[in-house]
């Protein structure tokens, strides 16, 4: 068979994997291709725009005429995402003019610039009243924008704002956000992801509890500076299936009196995904104590019989007092039969060799191990057990069920660990297992070609 004997649908699928710029050039190959490519483009429903489309060597500034031309080729788009391009407002103006049927929108701009304005949001909701998904993860959304989105998008299923600033210092929502319009979020919204703001916890929680979201949201992401609000959420929103809760280690280290609030998590009996992460960043250079919360969380596990995913993560931090995680692992084994994924940061907890063995005993298909991003030696006065080669390999040996193993920020492990992991995985009968190394040392990545990767393993560096 020749490529042009493939039927049009099939040829379309093949061509859809060609990068955009080249695809347009390939219209010149032959008449069949021209027709199929034009037809393909006119039916494309999802387009992901990134700086490489700008034609200016990957700079973030959008080239508006070009942007318009791309969209012109794809009038049937229903889903559009843009990442790392700015400014967003003029892009919205062109988007609404060219594409009438967008229902899903993901817009992540460039963090230093005012990314989106009330006018931009107005244009969006006017053009797309049937929008179901709106993600503006690093946009400085204010109260008015939330009100517009909540009251005029009557089919909105997911709203995500201000939750992803890529560890930049100015990562909080600005002064225009108090949270008081969250009460307008309607009953259709099942997934609500709220970014961090400074000192507005009280208003955010009150407003959330006063509106339909309290009863109807099933997946909630929120950042808290005070633990007492955690108990309000747990008491009032027992329907939650997914709960992503960020804390700020620096802020809650003074909140010792409210540690008991964490035990309210056990009321979330429908919970399937729980992510507790420490988001403390630049203002946390003195050690903090955020995981005073651990003991209460250990207790709360007994109520979470439907839990499938538990992640206890840390973004970039250093902790003075670390507690042992072993009791919590015991609870998971006892109370959570459906658990399939566990992620933990050694930057947050006191993980000893025994802890890794206990995690191994859970025998979960998906495991993430993080280490502190503060490299060894920065704080010589603190005794820390960094994730070692043996820890990683022992855990993997015990986890015969492993499908995806992520090892993040581990500065102490070296190529011997990678080799040993690959050897262990080569003996497994599973046909595909992913070993994912994130922020590993340069040395390991440089010699990646030297590793003997067994055919059942995908070795991924990120």
């Amino acid at each position, binding site marked *: 068979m*020749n490529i042009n004997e493939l039927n049009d649908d099939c040829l379309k699928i093949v061509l859809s994997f060609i990068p955009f710029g080249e695809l347009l050039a390939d219209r010149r190959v*032959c008449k069949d291709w021209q027709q199929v490519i034009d037809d393909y483009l006119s039916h494309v429903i999802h387009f992901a725009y990134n700086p490489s489309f700008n034609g200016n060597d990957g700079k973030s500034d959008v080239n508006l005429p070009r942007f318009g031309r791309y969209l012109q080729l794809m009038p049937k788009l229903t889903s559009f995402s843009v990442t790392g391009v700015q400014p967003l407002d003029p892009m919205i103006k062109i988007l609404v003019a060219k594409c009438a049927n967008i229902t899903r929108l993901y817009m992540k701009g460039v963090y230093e610039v005012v990314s989106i304005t009330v006018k931009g949001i107005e244009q969006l909701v006017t053009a797309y009243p049937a929008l179901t998904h709106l993600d503006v993860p690093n946009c400085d959304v204010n109260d008015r924008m939330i009100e517009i989105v909540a009251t005029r998008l009557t089919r909105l299923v997911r709203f995500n704002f201000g939750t992803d600033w890529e560890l930049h210092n100015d990562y909080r929502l600005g002064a225009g956000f108090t949270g008081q319009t969250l009460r307008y979020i309607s009953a259709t919204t099942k997934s609500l992801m709220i970014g961090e703001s400074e000192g507005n916890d009280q208003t955010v929680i009150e407003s959330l509890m006063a509106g339909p979201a309290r009863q109807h949201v099933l997946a909630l992401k929120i950042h808290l500076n005070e633990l007492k609000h955690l108990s309000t959420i747990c008491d009032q929103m027992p329907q939650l299936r997914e709960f992503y809760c960020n804390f700020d280690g620096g802020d809650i280290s003074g909140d010792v009196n409210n540690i008991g609030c964490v035990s309210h998590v056990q009321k979330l009996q429908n919970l399937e995904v729980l992510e507790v992460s420490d988001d403390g960043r630049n203002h946390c250079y003195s050690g903090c104590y955020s995981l005073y919360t651990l003991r209460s969380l250990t207790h709360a596990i007994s109520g979470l019989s439907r839990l499938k995913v538990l992640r206890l993560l840390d973004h970039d931090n250093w902790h003075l007092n670390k507690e042992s995680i072993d009791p919590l692992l015991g609870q998971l084994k006892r109370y959570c039969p459906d658990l399939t994924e566990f992620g933990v940061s050694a930057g947050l907890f006191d993980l000893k060799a025994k802890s890794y063995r206990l995690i191994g005993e859970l025998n979960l298909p998906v495991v993430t191990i993080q280490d502190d991003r503060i490299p060894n030696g920065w704080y010589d006065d603190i005794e820390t057990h960094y994730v070692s080669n043996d820890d990683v390999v022992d855990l993997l040996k015990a986890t015969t069920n492993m499908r995806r193993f992520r090892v993040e920020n581990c500065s102490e492990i070296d190529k011997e660990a990678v080799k040993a992991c690959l050897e262990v995985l080569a003996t497994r009968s599973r046909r595909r297992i992913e070993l994912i190394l994130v922020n590993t040392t340069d040395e390991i990545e440089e010699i990646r070609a030297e590793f003997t990767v067994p055919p059942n393993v995908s070795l991924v560096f990120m």
Partner: protein
Amino acid sequence: MADNADHIDGDDNEDVRAQQNLIKIKLKSSEGGIYECGLTAAKMSDLVKNMVESLGTDAVVTTEPIILGNEAVTDAALKKIIEWVEFHWDDPPVDHDFEDEKDRRNEELSHWDKQFIDVDDQALLFDVIAAANYMDIKGLVEVGAKHICSKIRGKSCQEVREMLKITNDFTAEEEDAIHKENAWIYAKD
């Protein structure tokens, strides 16, 4: 996220899938060859899956082979396809939590898939893709598509034609006109 709840719940549990794959069913190519394939593996084909579901597993196991009548399903193509589904049927579930990362990772095929799909015989390659498309095995069509794209990437139109044995049916004027239409793509502004 909540709207992905269906995916999170996933398929039957893994043990059941493993057990079911011990059950062998017969698939018949358009050239008449009959080949055995594990049930779970064969059900990666939506076409086969639908047949099994409407006929019932017992019927499929005990009676005549499932006939795959499309001419692309040659003996050689069907053998390749069975090799692929028998390798992939217990793939890890799709990772929905890291959407951004997925884009980066998707760029390359796994080692196994690369070796599997890099066949010298171009006719066989397109038979496999067409047959996989007919049998509705999305993952395999994608592997084929990515492989072809990796070959096309960075090549001129003429090189693409030569590689894929495509005849240029444009006149010089027509080709020039398209080149002009596309000019904005190459312009650096």
